[in-house]
């Protein structure tokens, strides 16, 4: 646990936050809060309380405010996650086109359930709400990329690539 206490934003992370801040009026630093949390998470994989506090300080909001924001939005991870986040949409359009098969295959292949991480720390599997790629259903997102029109074979190929 003591490892987390050292989590701080790097210089480059701080620079990125500075450049996000330029988008907003100078007295509206809070507008960059979400971006700052994202940058912090991209650097460290997840948002530790210390990172949230640091981001709060940078953007000039009370720590509990930053914590509210970090817990409101689903893309922030408040606990460590795998190297890759696999997010499968199970919402209506994907459901109608067989996301169950995608989910089962992924669970089986990775040997984990939703919200779990593989033992090697590579993959975290998640169920997500509609990602607005319904025309490519069933679909999933891995990190930043969308994979659409999935079937078992395609999933295997994708996961091979991520080895």
């Amino acid at each position, binding site marked *: 646990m003591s490892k987390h206490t050292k989590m701080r934003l790097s210089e480059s992370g701080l620079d990125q936050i500075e450049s996000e801040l330029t988008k907003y009026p100078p007295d509206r630093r809070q507008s960059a809060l979400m971006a700052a949390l994202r940058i912090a998470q991209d650097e460290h994989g997840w948002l530790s*309380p210390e990172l*949230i*506090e640091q981001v709060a300080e940078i953007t000039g909001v*009370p*720590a*509990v*405010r930053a*914590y*509210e924001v*970090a*817990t*409101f939005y*689903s893309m922030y991870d408040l606990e460590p996650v795998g190297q890759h986040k696999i997010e499968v949409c199970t919402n209506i359009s994907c459901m109608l086109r067989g996301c169950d098969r995608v989910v089962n295959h992924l669970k089986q292949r990775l040997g984990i359930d939703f919200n779990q991480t593989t033992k090697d720390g590579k993959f975290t599997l998640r169920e997500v709400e509609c990602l607005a790629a319904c025309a490519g259903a069933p679909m999933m997102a891995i990190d930043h990329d969308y994979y659409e029109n999935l079937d078992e074979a395609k999933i295997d190929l994708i996961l091979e690539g991520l080895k």
Partner: protein
Amino acid sequence: MSDVEIEIDGKTYPAKSGEMLIEVTDRNGIYIPRFCYHEKLSVAANCRMCLIEVERAPKPLPACATPVSNGMKVHTRSEIATEAQKGTMEFLLINHPLDCPVCDQGGECPLQDQALGYGKDNSRFLERKRSVPSDDIGPLIATEMTRCIHCTRCVRFGEEVAGVMEMGAPGRGEHVRITTFLDNTIDSEVSGNMIDLCPVGALTSKPFRFAARSWELTDHQSISSHDCLGSNILIQTLRNRVERVVPKENSDINECWLADRDRFSYQAIHSESRLTKPLIQRDGSWQEVDWETALTYTADGLRSIIEKGKAEQIGGLAHPMSSLEEFHLFQKLMRALGSENIDFRLQQNDFRDDDIAPRFPASELPIKDYARQSSILLIGSNIRKEQPLLSLRIRQGWREGKTTISAINPIDFDLNFECAVNEIAPDSAMLSRIAALANAIADLAGTPVPDEISTLSDDSDVALIARQLITAGQEGTIILGAFAQQHLDASLLKMISIWIAEITGSRLAVLAPGNSAGGALANCLPGTNGLNKQAMFASDMSGFVLLGGQLELDCLDAYVATKALKNADFVVQLTAFKPDPHEQNIHVVLPICSFAETSGNYINCEGRIQNSQVAIPPIGESKPAWKILRVLGNFLNLDGFDQITLDDVTKEVLEVMNSSDRTPSCRMKKFRLHAPITPTHDGLIPITYMPMYRGDALVRNASALQNSSDNPGPLVSLHPDTIKEHSLENGDWIEIGNGDVSACLQIIAEPRVAKDCVLIPAGYIETVNARAPGPLRIAKSNQEKS
């Protein structure tokens, strides 16, 4: 200024366009249920309990967030309205535990009341109820978060009113959970108000927990005298015990709020440390005696001094929280004994202007107007901790954009508003900075500034503050806080401030502790040849009569106070609390009642007299202080001590006071500036202060307050750089003192303290030696403590 008319349930009412419907119904006594709405908080409109029918609106509208418009027709009890309210009630109850029998809110719970009115008997909710973990959020507030209905009053209070966001609402949807970040505690100076605001039993008073059911309690009106506001309180009792203190709304003073110390200090009343029997010091230890013995002993002790012709060497010191009647009889007794050495100003250190001083320390600005100033200048005030509720008012004006605030302070205090200019000026720099301000104001106003002032000035740029005060004119107020009043050159600070106020048209406020106004108006002050507190400590006193408190803890100059006591032949103390078992300097201790056990009057900074009622009978054998003083008068065969009831005393003191003016004024009888006392410092500058929860015996004996984060403990704060310069580390133990005597204390790094300053808390025995007069030296202690 109504400008529209609306119809509610068939009757026409005048209203202001743009105000919310609920304001109109509340004003006219039409009841609309609500949970999230509170007149002192922003409108959240999230509970949906106040839904009512507005004609031509397609759906029910929340009364708290619907602005009125002319001709609007509203139905608060129609089918549509009640159906909507019932619907909300059902939603609120599905996840609310049915634990009213064990809930402290029971009997004063709007949810419970409304459930009776609107709820269904049989829940259709067949799913599992949500359960929410409750964190430990400190000594003041107990949590039971499963009961929370997410009205966010507590969150809004912190963010909007208090200015410290202690509570938040992390999470989303059903998982929203009211909590703190990282198990932080909730114990800032006004957080107890969240207990009152929480409409359910999610946030309740921790000290009150399970003590009583609310309907069993009896209310007694009283006044809190921890600060100069005179907040109105209700003491709630059950079977002769004070179980709780809650605010009594007074829009001119405390509104619906209380500072935590007003709310929780009652804990001291029934604490272990209450003194229940008179004590006499014999052979180095305390012995319980009966009243007769104690009084005889006291009278003999005093008489023996008088008989030696040393009546003029008896000093009388009262605690500023005493009541008007206590002050009156106290000074009367002292004078009858033949002594004019009378004082209550335990935290003041410069008395050179006593002869030209106004009647009492006052605020020329009415309390209710503190939110309406266009400019406020704080001089030596950590107002947030000194006068918490005034600070809320100032914050309100600041939040609404009405007030610009500046400060000239010895420390960069953590205030609950932002200062446009925040001058940090420790010690003698306070004086030169205010002189500089006078200079700048004279420049702008084209007035000559008296030479005595201009020679004191430094060359700092305070033009911005000067401009603010000049522009504000009568809408500006200068506040002299605790640090200004305890300053060695307090009389100069005051005089220059008055000069500034006169040039700019500003008002002045001298915010003194407790019932100081009462003390001054009762003339609990040195007579013509009498000694003030400081002079008493400096001369060879033969005896002391002490009323309330404990000098070593109540005085900032505790070191000299202790010495003075030690030198005296006879010291009698009237107090509600047990003395230190090792105390050697006091000879007899007489147990007095706390404020809850006796009635009395208090005068606030506006000159307003308020009465406090008896709530419970005396604890143990303690007696009201006024009675003891009167009986002492009898024991000593003095004239004028034949009052039978407290009313007689009140009448007497009011008669004396009638001749004096209670109009608040801070102006001196003439302009006179003394030579500044500039202590020569080689290096470190000591700044002593009284922590919020150490300044009187009540707070010191209230365990919840003592356990809160506002009780810092006997720690010495230094700027991190200063710590480094002295080759010390945060957390080190140091020897601190004048070279002859010293204390061994732990240091803590605090960037808010200016470099080369040492912030020492009074109110702790441990720090007394650190406050010995003379140059301040610190060195790493080789005597490691743990």
